[in-house]
């Protein structure tokens, strides 16, 4: 296999920390966009968070939404331009905390958008605070003694929650810590875009991603954190795939 830069990626260095999952996630999305031949139709919405600068790395049209509002911005884009391929790229604080209302309602409307949800169990950009997806016992700068369910509630299982909604036709959780998992993640990203192109409904892929700096571990140790601590809480796999869903009008 020849390694080359996808046309959908810019030839620049990223600002991401060593061991961070964003770079892999960005690249997988770009590979799939290239393979589908949709680069010139893509409109992407970057989040508030570490990935806010994604527009510097992607070679297609990108905007940034206010914190949590990406699904609503994407809704406005897609409703007015059904021929475009619209996706949001959101972190766990953005999607599951401040943007919980927007993601649930966009999913429930069956918006013809795809959502790539990076779960790294903390707020990376602001310095490692507790997120809705922070695991029980996980120490963060705002849960220094470890997340306690009685005080801060439980890790939020976004994919399982959204899969309950009739507007969702594809929901899967993948991880980015081993080559095998990366290959599975790419398949899921492809399936999400396929659902949008087929016009069947809302699609979302959760990607368990490392945040070594936020977690206070080495990149090599972060791989083990995903394997041993995150996956037991956030089981991998396709949670929902409605293959025969009737196309809905844009």
């Amino acid at each position, binding site marked *: 296999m020849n390694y080359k830069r996808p046309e959908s990626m810019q030839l620049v260095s990223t600002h991401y920390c060593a061991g961070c999952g964003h770079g892999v996630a960005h690249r997988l999305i770009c590979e799939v966009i290239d393979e589908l031949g949709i680069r010139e139709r893509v409109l992407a919405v970057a989040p508030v968070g570490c990935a806010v600068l994604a527009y510097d790395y992607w070679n297609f049209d990108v905007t*940034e939404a206010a914190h949590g509002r990406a699904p609503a911005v994407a809704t406005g884009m897609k409703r007015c331009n059904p021929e475009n391929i619209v996706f949001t790229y959101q972190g766990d604080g953005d999607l599951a905390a401040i943007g919980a209302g927007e993601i649930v309602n966009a999913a429930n409307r069956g918006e013809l958008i795809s959502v790539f949800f990076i779960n790294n169990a903390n707020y990376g950009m602001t310095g490692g605070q507790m997120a809705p997806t922070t695991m029980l016992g996980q120490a963060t700068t705002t849960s220094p003694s470890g997340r306690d369910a009685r005080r801060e509630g439980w890790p939020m299982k976004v994919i399982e929650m959204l899969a309950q909604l009739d507007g969702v036709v594809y929901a899967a959780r993948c991880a980015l810590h081993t080559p095998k998992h990366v290959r599975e993640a790419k398949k899921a990203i492809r399936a999400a875009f396929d659902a949008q192109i087929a016009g069947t409904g809302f699609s979302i892929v959760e990607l368990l991603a490392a945040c070594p700096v936020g977690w206070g571990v080495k990149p090599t140790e972060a791989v083990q954190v995903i394997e041993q601590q995150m996956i037991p809480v956030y089981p991998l796999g396709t949670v929902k795939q409605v293959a025969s869903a009737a196309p809905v009008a844009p």
Partner: protein
Amino acid sequence: MPRQHNTGVTKLMAGNHALAEGAVQAGCDAYFGYPITPQNEVPEYMAQRMAEEGRVFLQSESELAAISMVMGAALTGKRVMTSSSSPGISLMQEGISYLCGCELPAVLANVVRGGPGLGNIAAAQSDYFQSVKGGGHGDYRLLVIAPASVQEMFDFVFWAFDLAFKYRNPALILTDGLIGQMMEPVTFREPTWPRATPVSFDCSGWALTGARGRPPRSIKSLYLGDGVLEAHNAKLQAKYARAMAEEVRYEAVETDDADVVFVAYGIAARVCRETVARLRAQGVKAGVLRPLTLWPFPSAWLAEHAPRFAHIMVVELSCGQMIEDVQLAVGNRCPVNFYGRTGGGVMTCQELTTVALERFSTKAV
């Protein structure tokens, strides 16, 4: 566009319906909104009419989402609109700040109700500060226009789209629950005044439409580099300076020989106009300055003419907000009075006439 819209037909309509029909006829491509009294007639009317026209209507899950959907549509160069009332507009301030930072055109309408908090659902003008001084975070301005009749609710939407696209900035129609609910005759037309020269709605040079045959585009309000945000803000301010030079609109009624001049906008200006007639019948030479643009404000007119007047009286359905802009413009050239009602109270012509006579009859005549 252009479409047939029964031009020349006159109908009896509620202000909110006229606002919505004006938007449809002005070529609005998409409407996003959330229910709130007293503006529910706007989304209800749009739900019907936008479907008829094959355009986009969507009821959002919140005002936060509505303004973000507006941003999404605006990013792609569409003519997009939302409406709400005071508490809902408060929620939209986040997105409004982003629209300004990203330089995106959009039309917003605030059918103002009483506040603070949940307040009540009666007419008020207590969102003036929020509308013209910012409201959200950062150094930005909205182009704010204030209709005073149902016909103007229709006409001003065309003007608002002009302003929004001329400046790539949101334009706000600031009205109230009275004008929104009351019924008056409306003639469907392509309005001229107070619009200026025709505006181009061509967004092909900047909109996000897909990077087909061109380099990719990003539209954003984040500028982290040293001095980059300051330069961006300077660019915005230059745009606002141009708007201040070119867009001020007002209506000066019987001010040429006036001793007492009311300054009022929207529904309060209508009360003032009738009060002027009553005062003149009693020998008080009164007039009205009605700003049509609340931002930019007709400060230059006030500064120039204030020395001729014995008294200026600002009349608002608030505890006194626009008066601050009047005082800034007038300085010590003329005493500035205030009369306001709030919480749903609306002054009658009789009430305002009595107040004016008490304050000014001996001194002014």
